[in-house]
């Protein structure tokens, strides 16, 4: 919502007053609420949009805004809150946490209602002076695409009373007529002042209803504070808010049609809760009520809506009605008509279950209700289509266009909802589209599809894509195999479903059509054309015309050639679309692959595998840890096979430099040096050559690719320095097709993984050549193919992973680092590895410092205990532990040996101190605390905390993976975004320069600071990370991280990093306070002045060139300023680098 507002502002779209609203992005939602509070106090009509944790950050200001009776509306896509785990998905936990702020709360249940109720809320708040939270279900409603009637400016003008606007302005802080607000009050008066607002709240429900009535007169859609649907003489009634109301409405209508006396009361106005109106809205015949809350208020007498309903009935003397309450839909858990029926069935029982749960199986505290999942209310005549696509293949975009086409070109109603998996590379998207002649209230996923399309052939061996196909449905498959060959390539499950359900089966080689029509790898419009051609939703000719019209609208701004090539693809589609004659028998010799191999641990088999297979909904409560604690090292079991091509090693050409191992974002290419004897059991295809190490000449070296984990990004090939002297396009690693070598390489990988790792103690771990041999303890994450962040993380785990505590700010790194089903942090052969946690977005530095404080205190106490237990432990061991030098791998190894001995000595010690020391003994081994996150955290929302932690002097290491935008949430500008780059909230190019966080930290003088870029200087990267860890104080490393949000082929990511440094944009430096004591300048500038023009770096990236193409004059102006930025920054750095250590003149 905010992004669209910014886009419209950037496009100069005026509001009803003919002026373009100012849209400002703040550093956090807390900041946004503060700025909004100020804008409101100064008399502006102001609004904001947020959700989840963001809303929590606004709560302090919300009390102020409401306490001052300020007219405003916050629009909230209601979402879950992070508790045992983060969930970005929808429920009402966030808005319920804000229900005591004094804001009115108005709920919308559908996309149409969101638009309608937004206007009603804005109109009502001006009159009521009570601010409003207008909320609707995150994702289910906020991300649904639906055919609605759009309000026009005249509707808005008619609803907004200009006298009330004037009154709002008249209340503003204004030095022309000064007032004071925000006073402090003592016990004598605060209470009375708090009560002074009551009359406004009492009047609010009527004001809201009046606004609804006025709206009905203008627009024709009538809403009430409580809307009842169902039998007038209903005995059983469900009460609900949000999109669940739409689902319940569909179920109630179906049940009433079959004669059931049931009803539904949808809550629109939740705060202030008008008790009398509420009770009046219930049919007098009501005997029992089920209140459904989409939140969990643990420890309370019930969830909020339930409690309100019970209180209202008691207060109104209707305590005779039976009321039960239950929770549903937390974190976007599906809520279906079948569940609604389950609730009504429960209400029939003499003693229905109270405080129940719906949609899960609670086999621990047995709260869940049973229901018949087969109960369906899907409207006959509705087309229900499922599309399985690959994230980034354009399937979702094309489907959104299909909804628009059908919505606009036909009388049909249309609805689209899109489900994504949690991987950023090779993500599967499932589009759920409904089209039909009647309004669609089906706010739930499709489980009986009349059309199923699979846009990636490889999905068939991973998923049962036809599970939801109903008998007689159409199946469209993108297939490299033609209609005569495809059958034998299908797994048995697919063949069985096609035959048993009598599916009509079509194939098209979409990628071939795309290639031949200049569309490269883009198959979206081709598959969209197929859908229209087969589904018959529109006559073919009309459909093609509509698709072309939609292409012009969607892609027109990107250039004429884009439109033309899409047209060509549409025109070439139908002649390549074939119906397959389906054989009568299942003949395939293979089936869907198991989600995880048989040797995976029990938890992975029982829980993780089910989630991978899309069966997570079926897992009962007992399957889950009670406190959000999960086993590590699970990513290794999820073999995703997403790369079409993987690197193959040319062992003769290879110089064993380790650069490929270093840059691999997914730890899918590794090296080992080992004893020759290991090879006796090697698979036939396993490659090994003599190790090119001076001291390890007698050993063997192998560079091995994980064929099923590689994502095919080709970064490794791009950085390989060894070129074939007879054919320079070949390097020591080259991309080859994966399928033919998958099995052999998988066997090689398995063998390779069982080869013992090289002894860390004999390696020079600060050298890349040696560092490649260290086991990465971060592997196979779900990060984007070619990710620029993960190589740094992987290196960190190679160097310190066995003693690493990681605090990770919310963002990309917390998603690919910790999103189920599988997670990438893993352990070495001793069982040691990084222990990782994500607290929040805004508090990560503080959270990490907490880890450090605990480690330090435990170490301190353990040392104290050692002294106290000197007699029992023995002076020699105590002294050895206390004076241990743990600066080297050998030193840490020796200390671990001592601690092992200490534990043995303490094993029989039954004293309190002895037991304490036994449990804390590991704290005597040096710990490495890393605070990880992106620029959104470090530069913006978490900056205050980061600054405090850096100033604390504590030994923490902060790694900022700087992608220069909020990558995880879709490329919003941060203070790290450079001048001239286009980002969300900087659609016209960022006008201001990038904040120099590194130099800000340097000014403390007591912080180790480094700015690094692996692609430009890999050895420098290793050096800086090692120095940061060795520095006994706070360290800050800012790492250039290329990102898909920069808009270029990430295969060139490392090259682009080099260009960033060579252009002077990203100077490399290290600031090491320890050097002062050595009489040296702590500021070491590690890169040279610009050797290439800035534009040779930035104009390789879409984030810059999209401005050049759309607004060249502005791009040129910003380029000039950006050049000045680079020049002045360099001047400053150069000055620092030449500064003498202790005063004196600069040479």
């Amino acid at each position, binding site marked *: 919502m905010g992004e669209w507002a910014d886009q419209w502002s950037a496009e100069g779209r005026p509001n009803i007053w003919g002026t373009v609203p100012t849209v400002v992005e703040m550093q956090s939602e807390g900041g946004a609420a503060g700025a909004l509070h100020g804008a409101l106090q100064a008399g502006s009509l102001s609004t904001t949009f947020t959700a989840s944790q963001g809303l929590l950050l606004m709560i302090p200001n919300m009390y102020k805004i409401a306490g001052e009776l300020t007219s405003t509306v916050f629009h909230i896509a209601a979402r879950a809150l992070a508790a045992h785990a983060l969930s970005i998905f929808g429920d009402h936990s966030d808005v319920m946490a804000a229900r005591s702020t004094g804001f009115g709360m108005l709920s919308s249940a559908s996309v149409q209602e969101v638009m309608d109720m937004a206007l009603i809320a804005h109109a009502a708040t001006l009159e009521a002076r009570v601010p409003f939270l207008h909320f609707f279900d995150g994702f289910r409603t906020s991300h649904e695409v639906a055919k609605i009637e759009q309000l026009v400016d005249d509707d808005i003008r008619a609803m907004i009373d200009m006298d009330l606007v004037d009154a709002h302005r008249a209340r503003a802080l204004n030095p022309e007529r000064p007032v004071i607000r925000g006073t402090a009050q003592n016990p004598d008066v605060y209470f009375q002042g708090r009560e002074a607002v009551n009359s406004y709240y009492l009047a609010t429900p009527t004001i809201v209803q009046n606004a609804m009535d006025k709206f009905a007169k203008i627009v024709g859609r009538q809403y009430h504070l409580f809307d009842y649907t169902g039998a007038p003489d209903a005995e059983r009634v469900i009460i609900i808010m949000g999109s669940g109301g739409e689902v319940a409405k569909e179920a109630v209508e179906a049940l009433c049609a079959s004669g059931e006396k049931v009803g539904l009361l949808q809550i629109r106005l939740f705060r202030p809760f008008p008790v009398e109106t509420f009770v009046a809205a219930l049919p007098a015949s009501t005997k029992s009520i089920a209140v459904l809350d989409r939140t969990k208020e643990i420890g309370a007498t019930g969830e909020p809506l339930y409690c309100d309903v019970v209180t209202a009935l008691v207060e109104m003397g209707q305590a005779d009605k039976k009321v039960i309450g239950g929770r549903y839909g937390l974190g976007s858990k599906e809520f279906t008509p079948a569940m609604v029926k389950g609730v009504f069935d429960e209400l029939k029982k003499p003693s229905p279950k109270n405080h129940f749960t719906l949609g899960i199986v609670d086999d621990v505290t047995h709260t869940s209700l049973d229901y018949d999942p087969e109960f369906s209310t899907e409207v006959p005549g509705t087309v229900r289509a499922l599309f399985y696509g690959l994230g980034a293949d354009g399937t979702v975009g094309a489907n959104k266009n299909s909804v628009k086409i059908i919505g606009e070109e036909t009388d049909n109603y249309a609805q689209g909802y899109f489900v*994504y998996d949690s991987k950023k590379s090779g993500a599967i998207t499932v589009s759920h589209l409904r089209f039909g002649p009647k309004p669609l209230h089906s706010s739930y996923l499709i489980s009986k599809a009349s059309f199923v399309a699979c846009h990636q052939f490889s999905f068939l061996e991973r998923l049962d894509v036809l599970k939801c196909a109903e008998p007689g449905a159409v199946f469209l498959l993108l297939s490299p195999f033609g209609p005569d060959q495809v059958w034998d390539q299908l797994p048995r499950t697919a063949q069985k479903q096609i035959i048993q359900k009598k599916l009509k089966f079509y194939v098209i080689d979409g990628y071939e059509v795309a290639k031949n029509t200049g569309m490269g790898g883009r198959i979206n419009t081709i598959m969209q054309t197929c859908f229209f051609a087969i589904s018959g939703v529109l006559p073919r000719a009309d459909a093609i015309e509509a698709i072309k019209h939609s292409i012009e609208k969607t892609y027109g701004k990107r250039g004429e050639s884009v439109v033309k090539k899409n047209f060509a693809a549409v025109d070439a589609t139908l002649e390549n679309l074939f119906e397959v004659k389906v054989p009568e028998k299942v003949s395939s010799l293979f089936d869907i692959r198991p989600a995880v191999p048989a040797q995976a641990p029990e938890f992975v088999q029982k829980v993780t595998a089910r989630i991978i297979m899309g069966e997570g909904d079926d897992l009962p409560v007992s399957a889950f840890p009670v406190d959000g604690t999960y086993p590590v090292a699970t990513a290794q079991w999820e073999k995703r096979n997403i790369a079409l091509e993987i690197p193959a090693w040319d062992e003769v050409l290879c110089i064993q430099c380790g650069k490929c191992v270093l840059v691999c974002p997914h730890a899918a290419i590794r090296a080992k040096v080992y004893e020759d004897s290991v090879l006796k059991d090697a698979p036939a295809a396993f490659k090994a050559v003599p190790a090119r190490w001076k001291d390890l000449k007698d050993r063997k070296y192998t560079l091995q690719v994980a064929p099923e984990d590689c994502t095919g990004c080709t970064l490794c090939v791009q950085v390989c320095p060894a070129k074939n002297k007879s054919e320079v396009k070949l390097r020591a690693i080259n991309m080859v097709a994966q399928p033919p070598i998958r099995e052999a390489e998988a066997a090689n990988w398995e063998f390779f993984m069982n080869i013992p790792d090289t002894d860390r103690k004999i390696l020079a771990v600060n050298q890349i050549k040696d560092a490649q041999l260290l086991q990465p303890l971060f592997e196979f994450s779900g990060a984007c193919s070619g990710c620029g962040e993960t190589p740094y993380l992987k290196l960190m785990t190679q160097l310190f992973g066995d003693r690493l505590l990681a605090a990770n700010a919310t963002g990309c790194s917390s998603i690919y680092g910790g999103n189920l089903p599988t997670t990438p942090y893993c352990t070495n052969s001793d069982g040691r590895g990084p222990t990782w946690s994500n607290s929040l977005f805004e508090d990560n530095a503080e959270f990490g410092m907490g880890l450090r404080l605990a480690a330090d205190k435990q170490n301190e106490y353990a040392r104290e205990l050692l002294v106290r237990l000197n007699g029992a432990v023995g002076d020699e061991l105590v002294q050895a532990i206390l004076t241990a030098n743990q600066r080297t791998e050998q030193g840490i190894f020796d200390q671990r040996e001592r601690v092992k001995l200490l534990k043995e000595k303490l094993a029989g010690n039954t004293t309190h101190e002895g037991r304490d020391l036994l449990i804390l003994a590991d704290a005597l081994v040096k710990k490495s605390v890393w605070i990880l996150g992106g620029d959104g955290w470090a530069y913006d929302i978490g900056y205050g905390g980061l600054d405090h932690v850096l100033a604390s002097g504590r030994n923490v290491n902060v790694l900022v993976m700087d992608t220069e935008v909020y990558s995880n949430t879709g490329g919003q500008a941060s203070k790290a975004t450079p001048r001239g780059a286009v980002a969300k909230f900087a659609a016209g190019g960022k006008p201001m320069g990038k904040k120099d966080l590194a130099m800000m930290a340097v000014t403390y003088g007591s912080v180790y600071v480094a700015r690094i870029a692996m692609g430009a200087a890999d050895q420098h990267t290793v050096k800086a990370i090692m120095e940061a860890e060795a520095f006994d104080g706070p360290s800050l490393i800012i790492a250039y991280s290329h990102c898909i949000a920069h808009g270029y082929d990430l295969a060139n990511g490392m090259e682009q990093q080099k260009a960033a440094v060579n252009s002077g944009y990203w100077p490399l430096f290290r600031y090491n306070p320890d050097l002062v004591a050595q009489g040296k300048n702590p500021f070491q500038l590690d890169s040279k002045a610009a050797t290439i023009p800035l534009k040779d770096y930035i104009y390789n990236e879409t984030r810059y060139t999209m401005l050049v193409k759309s607004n060249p004059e502005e791009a040129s102006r910003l380029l000039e300023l950006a050049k000045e930025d680079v020049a002045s920054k360099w001047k400053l750095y150069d000055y620092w680098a030449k500064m003498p250590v202790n005063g004196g003149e600069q040479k």
Partner: protein
Amino acid sequence: MIDLSKTIDLSTTYLGLKLKNPLVVSSSPLCEDVGNIRRMEDSGAAAVVLHSLFEEQIEMESMELDRFMTESSGIGAEATTHFPELTSPVRGMEGYLKHIEACKSAVQIPVIASLNGISQGGWLDYAKKIQQAGADALELNIYYIPVDANVTGEQVEQRYIDLIRAIKNTVAIPVAVKLGPYFSSPANMAKKCDAAGADAIVLFNRFYQPDYDLEALEVVPNLMLSTQYELLLRLHWIAVLYGQVKADLALTGGVHAATDVIKSMMAGAKVAMVASALLKRGISYLDALATELLVWMGEHEYDSIRQMQGSMSRNAVPQPAAFERANYMKVLSSYAMR
């Protein structure tokens, strides 16, 4: 002191345009800036050929933009896209058209647009829009490198001819065709262009010649500025073609001194184009060229440029064989005799 500019007529005609002298600035990055165009006029340029509008580049850039915007979309529930929508459509050639308009309103001298591409589809549309934007003429820079060994010389030539015909049928402004030297029979190719309706033939285009980086073992793009040595090839073919084609002849490549301009004229060119010399010495060098031209002509008692145009063309010299194989053999034998 005699003001030579009043006694010597430097004017010439090119593409039907009357020019005050034969100095035309040829297509180069210098022409991307209106300020430079103004400086060129002030320094004495008689006309300018704007930098080239690259058809493939426009298309490729749009497709790349579309690719990266699309491929970064639909990746996750929380990041359905990674870029904002474009606030306004990509300019494509609109930027170029605006540049033509800006140049036209900034200077009095003729502004010749330059189109670089190979296909017929988009090009014609581009040519029409260039005309509408006010360009005085259009130079076609047909940059086609037939790397496919199955493509014959005839096919390549036909491609050029078809393009010229199509463009001529599309626009009313004069059309010049810039050719490369790598035709089996450059004279015949020029004649074909002439027959297809080209109003001028510009000899010769300079192709990017990739170089090797021996340390990185990479092929690197390379464009060296022209040298005076390159003039000779151009003089040779202008001299040969003079009188054989109706189209005006223009010489481009290797013009670095006033004497090079004079040679160009004598070979038969209507104009001599400069770019590398200005990149090396600055735009004001045009002024020096014009002055030197006048001085030379004054010293050698020439009244006008027209007087010398074609005066040393193949048919105007006493030994036409100097432009043929006989002369080549003579040169070689003269080396042998040393």
